[in-house]
Protein backbone atom coordinates (compact mmCIF):
# COMPACT_ATOMS: atom_id res chain seq x y z
CA UNK A 1 0.00 0.00 0.00
CA UNK A 2 1.85 3.05 -1.16
CA UNK A 3 -1.14 5.35 -1.27
CA UNK A 4 -1.40 7.50 1.78
CA UNK A 5 -4.37 9.42 2.97
CA UNK A 6 -3.91 13.12 3.60
CA UNK A 7 -5.46 14.06 6.91
CA UNK A 8 -6.25 17.58 8.01
CA UNK A 9 -7.68 18.31 11.39
CA UNK A 10 -8.78 21.90 11.78
CA UNK A 11 -10.45 23.74 14.61
CA UNK A 12 -11.88 27.24 14.21
CA UNK A 13 -8.79 28.61 15.88
CA UNK A 14 -6.08 26.83 13.92
CA UNK A 15 -4.96 23.97 11.75
CA UNK A 16 -4.19 21.26 14.28
CA UNK A 17 -2.89 18.34 12.29
CA UNK A 18 -1.78 18.08 8.73
CA UNK A 19 -0.33 14.64 8.16
CA UNK A 20 -0.41 11.54 6.03
CA UNK A 21 -1.57 8.20 7.26
CA UNK A 22 -2.59 4.78 6.02
CA UNK A 23 -5.95 4.84 7.70
CA UNK A 24 -7.95 7.14 9.91
CA UNK A 25 -10.91 6.01 12.01
CA UNK A 26 -13.50 8.73 12.49
CA UNK A 27 -16.26 8.56 15.10
CA UNK A 28 -19.17 9.41 12.82
CA UNK A 29 -22.53 10.20 14.34
CA UNK A 30 -23.95 7.04 12.79
CA UNK A 31 -21.02 4.88 13.82
CA UNK A 32 -17.27 4.80 13.46
CA UNK A 33 -15.86 4.55 10.01
CA UNK A 34 -12.37 4.00 8.73
CA UNK A 35 -11.10 6.11 5.86
CA UNK A 36 -8.38 4.88 3.53
CA UNK A 37 -7.06 6.66 0.51
CA UNK A 38 -9.45 6.49 -2.40
CA UNK A 39 -12.49 6.52 -0.14
CA UNK A 40 -15.73 7.68 -1.75
CA UNK A 41 -16.61 11.34 -1.06
CA UNK A 42 -18.58 11.60 2.16
CA UNK A 43 -19.75 14.37 4.41
CA UNK A 44 -20.59 13.21 7.88
CA UNK A 45 -21.19 14.79 11.21
CA UNK A 46 -18.95 13.60 13.99
CA UNK A 47 -19.90 12.77 17.56
CA UNK A 48 -17.56 13.35 20.50
CA UNK A 49 -15.00 10.59 20.37
CA UNK A 50 -11.52 9.59 19.37
CA UNK A 51 -9.95 9.89 15.96
CA UNK A 52 -7.47 7.08 15.49
CA UNK A 53 -4.64 7.60 13.07
CA UNK A 54 -3.05 4.41 11.77
CA UNK A 55 0.22 4.45 9.96
CA UNK A 56 2.69 1.67 9.16
CA UNK A 57 0.44 -0.95 10.81
CA UNK A 58 0.50 0.92 14.10
CA UNK A 59 -1.82 3.31 15.77
CA UNK A 60 0.28 6.45 15.72
CA UNK A 61 -2.05 8.97 17.20
CA UNK A 62 -5.27 9.22 19.14
CA UNK A 63 -6.99 12.57 19.23
CA UNK A 64 -10.16 13.29 21.11
CA UNK A 65 -12.56 15.68 19.43
CA UNK A 66 -15.68 17.16 20.91
CA UNK A 67 -17.71 16.85 17.74
CA UNK A 68 -17.80 18.48 14.35
CA UNK A 69 -17.83 17.41 10.72
CA UNK A 70 -15.74 15.17 8.51
CA UNK A 71 -15.39 15.58 4.80
CA UNK A 72 -13.79 13.05 2.51
CA UNK A 73 -12.81 14.23 -0.95
CA UNK A 74 -10.54 12.91 -3.62
CA UNK A 75 -7.72 14.89 -2.00
CA UNK A 76 -8.11 13.44 1.44
CA UNK A 77 -9.92 13.66 4.72
CA UNK A 78 -10.70 16.92 6.47
CA UNK A 79 -12.09 16.95 9.97
CA UNK A 80 -13.65 20.18 11.16
CA UNK A 81 -13.50 19.81 14.90
CA UNK A 82 -14.90 22.11 17.53
CA UNK A 83 -12.12 21.27 19.88
CA UNK A 84 -9.43 18.63 19.81
CA UNK A 85 -7.20 17.24 22.51
CA UNK A 86 -4.60 14.50 22.01
CA UNK A 87 -5.58 11.58 24.20
CA UNK A 88 -2.06 11.44 25.60
CA UNK A 89 -2.57 14.89 27.10
CA UNK A 90 -5.75 14.03 28.93
CA UNK A 91 -5.55 13.35 32.62
CA UNK A 92 -7.80 10.71 34.04
CA UNK A 93 -7.98 12.14 37.55
CA UNK A 94 -8.70 15.60 36.29
CA UNK A 95 -11.51 14.28 34.13
CA UNK A 96 -13.00 12.33 37.01
CA UNK A 97 -12.89 15.46 39.11
CA UNK A 98 -14.63 17.46 36.42
CA UNK A 99 -17.22 14.73 36.03
CA UNK A 100 -17.96 14.85 39.76
CA UNK A 101 -18.29 18.63 39.54
CA UNK A 102 -20.66 18.33 36.61
CA UNK A 103 -22.77 15.80 38.50
CA UNK A 104 -22.98 18.21 41.42
CA UNK A 105 -24.01 20.94 39.01
CA UNK A 106 -26.75 18.68 37.74
CA UNK A 107 -28.07 18.19 41.25
CA UNK A 108 -27.96 21.90 41.98
CA UNK A 109 -29.42 22.88 38.63
CA UNK A 110 -32.61 24.86 39.01
CA UNK A 111 -33.46 25.86 35.48
CA UNK A 112 -34.03 23.59 32.53
CA UNK A 113 -31.16 25.21 30.75
CA UNK A 114 -28.71 24.52 33.56
CA UNK A 115 -29.85 20.91 33.73
CA UNK A 116 -29.42 20.58 30.01
CA UNK A 117 -25.95 22.07 30.10
CA UNK A 118 -24.85 19.85 32.98
CA UNK A 119 -26.14 16.77 31.17
CA UNK A 120 -24.25 17.71 28.04
CA UNK A 121 -21.06 18.19 30.04
CA UNK A 122 -21.52 14.82 31.73
CA UNK A 123 -22.05 13.09 28.41
CA UNK A 124 -18.94 14.72 27.00
CA UNK A 125 -16.80 13.89 30.01
CA UNK A 126 -18.00 10.29 30.03
CA UNK A 127 -16.89 9.96 26.42
CA UNK A 128 -13.55 11.49 27.30
CA UNK A 129 -13.05 9.06 30.17
CA UNK A 130 -13.83 6.17 27.85
CA UNK A 131 -11.15 7.42 25.53
CA UNK A 132 -8.55 7.53 28.28
CA UNK A 133 -9.37 4.10 29.64
Amino acid at each position, binding site marked *: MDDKLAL*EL*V*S*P*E*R*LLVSAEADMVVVP*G*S*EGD*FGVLSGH*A*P*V*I*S*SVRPGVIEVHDEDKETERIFITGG*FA*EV*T*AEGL*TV*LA*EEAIPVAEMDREDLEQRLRNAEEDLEDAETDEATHRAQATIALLTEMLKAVA
Partner: protein
Amino acid sequence: MASLKDLRVRINSVRSTQKITRAMQMVAASKLRRAQEQAEAGRPYANHMRRMMVSLTAALTNPDDAPVLMVGRGEAKTHLFVVASSERGLCGSFNTNIVRRARQRATTLLQSGNKVRILCIGKKGRDMLRRDLGDHIVDTIDMSGVRRLGFGDATPIARRITEMFEAEEFDVCTLFYSHFKSVLSQEVTEHQLIPVGVPEASQEDARVEGADAMYEYEPEEDEILEDLLPRNVAVQIYHALLENAASEQGARMTAMDNATRNAGEMIDRLTLVYNRTRQAMITKELIEIISGAEAL
Protein backbone atom coordinates in the same frame (compact mmCIF):
# COMPACT_ATOMS: atom_id res chain seq x y z
CA MET B 1 5.29 86.29 25.36
CA ALA B 2 5.45 83.06 27.31
CA SER B 3 8.24 82.91 29.82
CA LEU B 4 11.08 80.43 29.49
CA LYS B 5 9.69 78.35 32.29
CA ASP B 6 6.28 78.07 30.65
CA LEU B 7 7.89 76.91 27.45
CA ARG B 8 9.97 74.33 29.26
CA VAL B 9 6.92 72.94 30.99
CA ARG B 10 5.04 72.84 27.71
CA ILE B 11 7.83 71.02 25.92
CA ASN B 12 8.10 68.46 28.67
CA SER B 13 4.40 67.77 28.65
CA VAL B 14 4.33 67.26 24.89
CA ARG B 15 7.35 65.03 25.20
CA SER B 16 5.64 62.77 27.72
CA THR B 17 2.56 62.60 25.52
CA GLN B 18 4.82 61.55 22.69
CA LYS B 19 6.29 58.82 24.85
CA ILE B 20 2.83 57.46 25.54
CA THR B 21 1.72 57.52 21.93
CA ARG B 22 4.95 55.86 20.84
CA ALA B 23 4.51 53.13 23.43
CA MET B 24 0.92 52.62 22.32
CA GLN B 25 2.03 52.36 18.74
CA MET B 26 4.52 49.68 19.60
CA VAL B 27 2.04 47.77 21.70
CA ALA B 28 -0.45 47.94 18.85
CA ALA B 29 2.19 46.68 16.44
CA SER B 30 2.90 43.60 18.49
CA LYS B 31 -0.78 42.95 19.13
CA LEU B 32 -1.42 43.38 15.45
CA ARG B 33 1.05 40.67 14.60
CA ARG B 34 -0.67 38.29 16.98
CA ALA B 35 -4.12 39.20 15.73
CA GLN B 36 -3.02 38.75 12.15
CA GLU B 37 -1.56 35.33 12.85
CA GLN B 38 -4.73 34.33 14.58
CA ALA B 39 -6.84 35.51 11.69
CA GLU B 40 -4.73 33.51 9.29
CA ALA B 41 -4.83 30.41 11.47
CA GLY B 42 -8.62 30.54 11.43
CA ARG B 43 -8.85 30.67 7.68
CA PRO B 44 -8.63 26.94 6.78
CA TYR B 45 -11.65 26.16 8.91
CA ALA B 46 -13.71 28.96 7.42
CA ASN B 47 -12.75 27.90 3.90
CA HIS B 48 -13.67 24.27 4.43
CA MET B 49 -16.90 25.32 6.05
CA ARG B 50 -17.74 27.42 3.03
CA ARG B 51 -16.94 24.60 0.68
CA MET B 52 -19.16 22.21 2.56
CA MET B 53 -21.95 24.75 2.55
CA VAL B 54 -21.67 25.13 -1.19
CA SER B 55 -21.72 21.42 -1.90
CA LEU B 56 -24.53 20.81 0.54
CA THR B 57 -26.72 23.49 -0.97
CA ALA B 58 -25.96 22.21 -4.43
CA ALA B 59 -27.01 18.74 -3.36
CA LEU B 60 -30.22 19.76 -1.64
CA THR B 61 -32.90 17.53 -3.07
CA ASN B 62 -35.79 19.90 -2.69
CA PRO B 63 -34.83 23.49 -1.96
CA ASP B 64 -38.40 24.30 -0.99
CA ASP B 65 -38.18 22.83 2.46
CA ALA B 66 -34.66 23.97 3.11
CA PRO B 67 -34.15 25.17 6.67
CA VAL B 68 -35.36 28.73 7.34
CA LEU B 69 -31.93 29.70 8.58
CA MET B 70 -30.79 29.23 5.04
CA VAL B 71 -33.55 30.60 2.88
CA GLY B 72 -35.22 32.91 5.35
CA ARG B 73 -38.89 33.35 6.03
CA GLY B 74 -39.55 35.09 2.78
CA GLU B 75 -39.88 38.54 4.25
CA ALA B 76 -37.54 41.24 5.43
CA LYS B 77 -39.46 43.48 7.80
CA THR B 78 -37.30 43.39 10.90
CA HIS B 79 -33.57 43.66 10.58
CA LEU B 80 -31.00 42.78 13.17
CA PHE B 81 -27.69 44.58 12.94
CA VAL B 82 -24.75 43.04 14.69
CA VAL B 83 -22.24 45.83 15.00
CA ALA B 84 -18.75 44.78 15.99
CA SER B 85 -16.58 47.56 17.37
CA SER B 86 -13.69 47.86 19.78
CA GLU B 87 -13.57 48.09 23.54
CA ARG B 88 -10.98 50.81 23.60
CA GLY B 89 -10.66 54.13 21.91
CA LEU B 90 -7.65 55.93 20.49
CA CYS B 91 -7.73 53.97 17.27
CA GLY B 92 -8.41 56.70 14.75
CA SER B 93 -11.58 56.48 12.75
CA PHE B 94 -11.97 52.73 13.22
CA ASN B 95 -15.17 52.81 15.27
CA THR B 96 -16.54 55.91 13.57
CA ASN B 97 -16.41 54.22 10.18
CA ILE B 98 -18.21 51.08 11.29
CA VAL B 99 -20.84 53.02 13.16
CA ARG B 100 -21.37 55.44 10.32
CA ARG B 101 -22.09 52.61 7.91
CA ALA B 102 -24.48 50.90 10.30
CA ARG B 103 -26.25 54.20 10.96
CA GLN B 104 -26.66 54.88 7.26
CA ARG B 105 -28.21 51.48 6.66
CA ALA B 106 -30.45 51.80 9.67
CA THR B 107 -31.73 55.19 8.60
CA THR B 108 -32.58 53.98 5.10
CA LEU B 109 -34.37 50.94 6.46
CA LEU B 110 -36.27 52.94 9.04
CA GLN B 111 -37.40 55.44 6.44
CA SER B 112 -38.83 52.69 4.28
CA GLY B 113 -40.87 51.45 7.21
CA ASN B 114 -38.79 48.51 8.37
CA LYS B 115 -37.86 47.74 11.92
CA VAL B 116 -34.26 47.74 13.01
CA ARG B 117 -32.75 46.15 16.07
CA ILE B 118 -29.12 46.45 16.99
CA LEU B 119 -26.86 44.11 18.86
CA CYS B 120 -23.57 45.73 19.73
CA ILE B 121 -20.35 43.86 20.28
CA GLY B 122 -17.92 46.12 22.06
CA LYS B 123 -18.44 49.21 24.15
CA LYS B 124 -17.34 51.90 21.74
CA GLY B 125 -19.91 51.13 19.10
CA ARG B 126 -22.68 51.14 21.65
CA ASP B 127 -21.60 54.50 23.05
CA MET B 128 -21.75 56.03 19.61
CA LEU B 129 -25.00 54.41 18.50
CA ARG B 130 -26.75 55.11 21.76
CA ARG B 131 -27.05 58.78 20.93
CA ASP B 132 -29.48 58.54 18.04
CA LEU B 133 -30.46 54.88 17.78
CA GLY B 134 -30.59 54.12 21.49
CA ASP B 135 -34.13 52.74 21.35
CA HIS B 136 -33.14 50.13 18.81
CA ILE B 137 -30.24 48.64 20.73
CA VAL B 138 -31.24 45.25 22.07
CA ASP B 139 -28.11 44.47 23.97
CA THR B 140 -24.38 44.97 24.13
CA ILE B 141 -21.91 42.18 24.41
CA ASP B 142 -18.95 43.11 26.54
CA MET B 143 -15.65 41.85 25.21
CA SER B 144 -13.41 43.78 27.56
CA GLY B 145 -12.60 40.69 29.61
CA VAL B 146 -11.39 38.81 26.58
CA ARG B 147 -7.62 38.75 26.32
CA ARG B 148 -7.24 36.32 23.48
CA LEU B 149 -10.19 35.76 21.21
CA GLY B 150 -11.31 32.17 21.14
CA PHE B 151 -14.02 30.39 19.26
CA GLY B 152 -15.73 30.07 22.63
CA ASP B 153 -16.29 33.83 22.58
CA ALA B 154 -18.20 33.64 19.33
CA THR B 155 -20.49 30.71 20.07
CA PRO B 156 -22.64 32.44 22.75
CA ILE B 157 -23.22 35.35 20.38
CA ALA B 158 -24.20 32.98 17.61
CA ARG B 159 -26.51 31.06 19.91
CA ARG B 160 -28.12 34.29 21.00
CA ILE B 161 -28.73 35.29 17.40
CA THR B 162 -30.16 31.94 16.32
CA GLU B 163 -32.43 31.91 19.36
CA MET B 164 -33.68 35.37 18.51
CA PHE B 165 -34.28 34.22 14.96
CA GLU B 166 -36.21 31.18 16.11
CA ALA B 167 -38.30 33.41 18.36
CA GLU B 168 -39.06 35.40 15.19
CA GLU B 169 -37.58 38.56 16.62
CA PHE B 170 -36.06 39.44 13.27
CA ASP B 171 -36.03 38.29 9.65
CA VAL B 172 -32.67 39.37 8.35
CA CYS B 173 -29.41 39.58 10.23
CA THR B 174 -26.49 41.65 9.00
CA LEU B 175 -23.06 41.75 10.51
CA PHE B 176 -20.98 44.94 10.42
CA TYR B 177 -17.26 44.74 10.94
CA SER B 178 -14.03 46.02 9.59
CA HIS B 179 -12.21 43.86 7.11
CA PHE B 180 -8.45 43.87 7.51
CA LYS B 181 -6.92 44.59 4.13
CA SER B 182 -3.56 45.83 5.30
CA VAL B 183 -2.08 47.77 8.18
CA LEU B 184 -2.93 50.99 6.42
CA SER B 185 -6.33 50.18 5.10
CA GLN B 186 -9.32 48.59 6.72
CA GLU B 187 -12.61 48.33 4.99
CA VAL B 188 -15.99 48.38 6.64
CA THR B 189 -17.84 45.29 5.52
CA GLU B 190 -21.40 44.19 5.93
CA HIS B 191 -22.19 40.56 5.73
CA GLN B 192 -25.60 38.98 5.74
CA LEU B 193 -25.68 36.19 8.30
CA ILE B 194 -29.28 35.10 8.16
CA PRO B 195 -30.67 33.96 5.81
CA VAL B 196 -27.37 32.53 4.73
CA GLY B 197 -28.25 33.58 1.22
CA VAL B 198 -27.38 30.28 -0.38
CA PRO B 199 -23.76 30.82 -1.32
CA GLU B 200 -24.12 31.53 -5.00
CA ALA B 201 -22.23 28.67 -6.52
CA SER B 202 -20.00 30.85 -8.65
CA GLN B 203 -18.60 29.58 -11.91
CA GLU B 204 -15.33 28.72 -10.29
CA ASP B 205 -16.91 26.85 -7.42
CA ALA B 206 -19.16 24.96 -9.74
CA ARG B 207 -16.23 23.68 -11.69
CA VAL B 208 -14.31 22.64 -8.61
CA GLU B 209 -17.34 21.08 -7.01
CA GLY B 210 -18.55 19.48 -10.20
CA ALA B 211 -15.77 16.93 -10.03
CA ASP B 212 -16.73 15.57 -6.66
CA ALA B 213 -20.29 16.68 -6.20
CA MET B 214 -21.34 13.09 -5.62
CA TYR B 215 -21.06 13.13 -1.88
CA GLU B 216 -22.58 10.58 0.36
CA TYR B 217 -24.16 12.02 3.46
CA GLU B 218 -24.19 10.58 6.87
CA PRO B 219 -26.75 11.28 8.31
CA GLU B 220 -29.01 12.84 5.65
CA GLU B 221 -28.27 16.25 4.10
CA ASP B 222 -30.96 18.06 5.97
CA GLU B 223 -29.79 16.73 9.31
CA ILE B 224 -26.25 17.80 8.60
CA LEU B 225 -27.50 21.18 7.48
CA GLU B 226 -29.43 21.58 10.68
CA ASP B 227 -26.17 21.14 12.52
CA LEU B 228 -24.04 23.04 10.10
CA LEU B 229 -26.08 26.22 9.73
CA PRO B 230 -25.87 27.43 13.33
CA ARG B 231 -22.22 26.45 13.31
CA ASN B 232 -21.75 28.50 10.21
CA VAL B 233 -23.18 31.56 11.97
CA ALA B 234 -20.68 31.08 14.79
CA VAL B 235 -17.80 30.66 12.37
CA GLN B 236 -18.76 33.81 10.49
CA ILE B 237 -18.95 35.79 13.70
CA TYR B 238 -15.65 34.41 14.91
CA HIS B 239 -14.10 35.29 11.59
CA ALA B 240 -15.52 38.82 11.77
CA LEU B 241 -14.25 39.28 15.32
CA LEU B 242 -10.77 38.21 14.30
CA GLU B 243 -10.75 40.55 11.32
CA ASN B 244 -12.04 43.31 13.53
CA ALA B 245 -9.37 42.74 16.14
CA ALA B 246 -6.64 42.91 13.53
CA SER B 247 -8.19 46.03 11.97
CA GLU B 248 -8.47 47.72 15.34
CA GLN B 249 -4.79 47.23 16.07
CA GLY B 250 -3.88 48.34 12.56
CA ALA B 251 -5.97 51.49 12.89
CA ARG B 252 -4.53 52.21 16.32
CA MET B 253 -1.03 51.75 15.06
CA THR B 254 -1.54 54.26 12.26
CA ALA B 255 -3.32 56.71 14.52
CA MET B 256 -0.60 56.53 17.15
CA ASP B 257 2.09 56.84 14.54
CA ASN B 258 0.50 60.08 13.37
CA ALA B 259 0.15 61.30 16.92
CA THR B 260 3.80 60.59 17.63
CA ARG B 261 4.82 62.49 14.52
CA ASN B 262 2.61 65.44 15.38
CA ALA B 263 4.05 65.58 18.86
CA GLY B 264 7.52 65.56 17.36
CA GLU B 265 6.67 68.50 15.12
CA MET B 266 5.21 70.37 18.04
CA ILE B 267 8.32 69.79 20.13
CA ASP B 268 10.50 71.09 17.31
CA ARG B 269 8.39 74.23 17.01
CA LEU B 270 8.35 74.85 20.73
CA THR B 271 12.08 74.26 21.02
CA LEU B 272 12.66 76.87 18.33
CA VAL B 273 10.53 79.41 20.19
CA TYR B 274 12.27 78.47 23.42
CA ASN B 275 15.74 79.03 21.98
CA ARG B 276 14.75 82.31 20.39
CA THR B 277 13.30 83.57 23.63
CA ARG B 278 16.40 82.51 25.51
CA GLN B 279 18.66 84.31 23.07
CA ALA B 280 16.51 87.40 23.11
CA MET B 281 16.83 87.47 26.87
CA ILE B 282 20.60 87.08 26.75
CA THR B 283 20.86 89.84 24.18
CA LYS B 284 18.67 92.05 26.28
CA GLU B 285 20.81 91.47 29.36
CA LEU B 286 24.00 92.17 27.40
CA ILE B 287 22.56 95.42 26.05
CA GLU B 288 21.64 96.42 29.55
CA ILE B 289 25.14 95.73 30.84
CA ILE B 290 26.85 97.49 27.95
CA SER B 291 24.66 100.54 28.02
CA GLY B 292 25.12 100.64 31.79
CA ALA B 293 28.91 100.59 31.36
CA GLU B 294 28.79 103.26 28.68
CA ALA B 295 26.77 105.55 30.87
CA LEU B 296 29.53 105.61 33.46
